[in-house]
């Protein structure tokens, strides 16, 4: 389920924490990053590793927006819709990206390449950002967005 090296790193972390239950989020993050979703099998796996009940694991993961039960696209495009960015025109950016990708917020393209999400403040409000997977792109103009999206293959 998790590559050996990463698993080793997680096991090392277990030793440092006061209690290994703290590792639940790190385990789920590792799985989400590899598979782009959390399967039933993954839940069973993590539950067993950390001696937890699978239903407890499910309860936890549904609380957090990072985790998805359905497979996300290869590129997860996340645009901030919160106040500071909206004051700088995030809404026209959102409309533009939505049209360009032919996706409504929350949707994944049928070829599995893109998921488009609106997110809350990304802590970069002076520069109206968007995130693609785990990378920030800032000071966006429509031309710049075009360039970035075209470069994703």
């Amino acid at each position, binding site marked *: 389920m998790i590559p050996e090296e990463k698993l080793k790193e997680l096991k090392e972390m277990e030793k440092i924490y006061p209690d290994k239950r703290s590792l639940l989020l790190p385990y789920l993050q590792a799985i989400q990053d590899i598979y782009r979703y959390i399967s039933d099998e993954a839940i069973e796996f993590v539950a067993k590793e950390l001696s937890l009940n699978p239903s407890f694991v499910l309860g936890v993961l549904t609380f957090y927006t990072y985790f998805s039960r359905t497979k996300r696209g290869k590129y997860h495009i996340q645009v901030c819709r919160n106040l500071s960015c909206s004051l700088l025109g995030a809404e026209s950016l959102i409309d533009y990206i939505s049209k360009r990708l032919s996706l409504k917020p929350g949707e994944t393209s049928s070829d599995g390449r893109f998921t488009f999400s609106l997110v809350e403040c990304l*802590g970069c409000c002076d520069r109206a950002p968007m995130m693609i997977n785990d990378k920030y792109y800032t000071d966006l103009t429509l031309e710049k967005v075009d360039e970035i999206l075209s470069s994703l293959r």
Partner: protein
Amino acid sequence: MNEGPFSQLLKVDGINKIERYLEQGGYSALKKALGMKPDEIIEEVKTSGIRGRGGAGFPAVVKWSFIPKDKRPVYLVCNADEGEPGTFKDRYIIEKIPHLLLEGIAISSYAVGANFALIYIRWEYVREAEILKNAIREAKEKGMLGKNIMGSGFDLEVVVHRGAGAYICGEETALLESAEGKRGNPRVKPPFPANVGLYGAPTVVNNVETLASVPLIIEKGGKWYASIGKPKSTGFKLFAVSGHVKKPGLYEKPMGYPLLKLINEDCGGIREERKLKAVIPGGTSTPPLTAEEADVSLDYESIQEKGSMLGSGAIIVMDDSTCMVYVAKKLADFYSHESCGQCTPCREGMPWLKEILARIENGLGESDDIPLLMDICTGILGRTLCPLGDAGALPILAYVKKFREEFEAHIKEKGCPFKGKK
């Protein structure tokens, strides 16, 4: 112009590396602290008068002195969740001067008797988490963290723990739940984390900026720190300015700096030579100040006198083209999305606010929607388990009260009077 200790360090190239940080006198405050008694450190920080930079402005050290002296283990948690809309100050500290934060964590941990410290960082700060992990590795290699720090006999393990996308996990008890591998539901207080925190152990929770200020206080003394700013709002503060100013960004100022000076001089004034309409002084959870109220100095007391809060120091500036119904609706969208759902007034109230504000904005509002909005806000205020309920209801109520004529105009004209006029 930026003035103050953070800005000086932020300017130094490559200071995220330990060698460079040491060259600049880094970790000397830790060395000094390890030669002091823990109580002396607590006393020094108390003298400084520093108040928590995470939003509540609670004297940082009061929490430290609540930690029982006879109970072990004790834990220290650094709150790097930075989710309050408009806030981006902690990110700069972590990215540029991670060792300053680690030094502050080490001194504070020693003061409260913690041998394990956890930095809870929002997941989006992927790069920043990596920077911190690297810095921890470097510090361990140089003997500034880990076992027997600088031969003092003091041990400290620091871990970087990533969140998973939930604003509520910035609230300290929700954070602790999340760090224990659970849903981020806030706990009932009391007991406070200083008594029952991470896995039931006494725990100190402080914001990044608070902890990163500690080395300076130890180095230069609490008296020196207290001499800056105002008597009850001491020291320097980072202000994250966004919105309709020409030069948004991070500004470091002594407490008590005039808000209008910050906007008009430091930030170059309002964009497109427009006029100021309103300004949020401390993140979206704090009520807005009107242009008239904005003639205020940036410290906890002065802002409070105007009925708002300094909060996290996130200043959001809005010019006269801004629709206040739209702003209130943005807030309602956010707080309804982020409500953890544990208490009814917050879980049910926020979506109602969102719905009513949407219909007013879209020209479908009725005249009794305004009293209804106020009624829902007052129904939430003071009736929830954690402060998120108030954080949404208080500002939304303030938008309705302070800009009521705009809400009425939307209803009368059956639409947004600002649309198409920008």
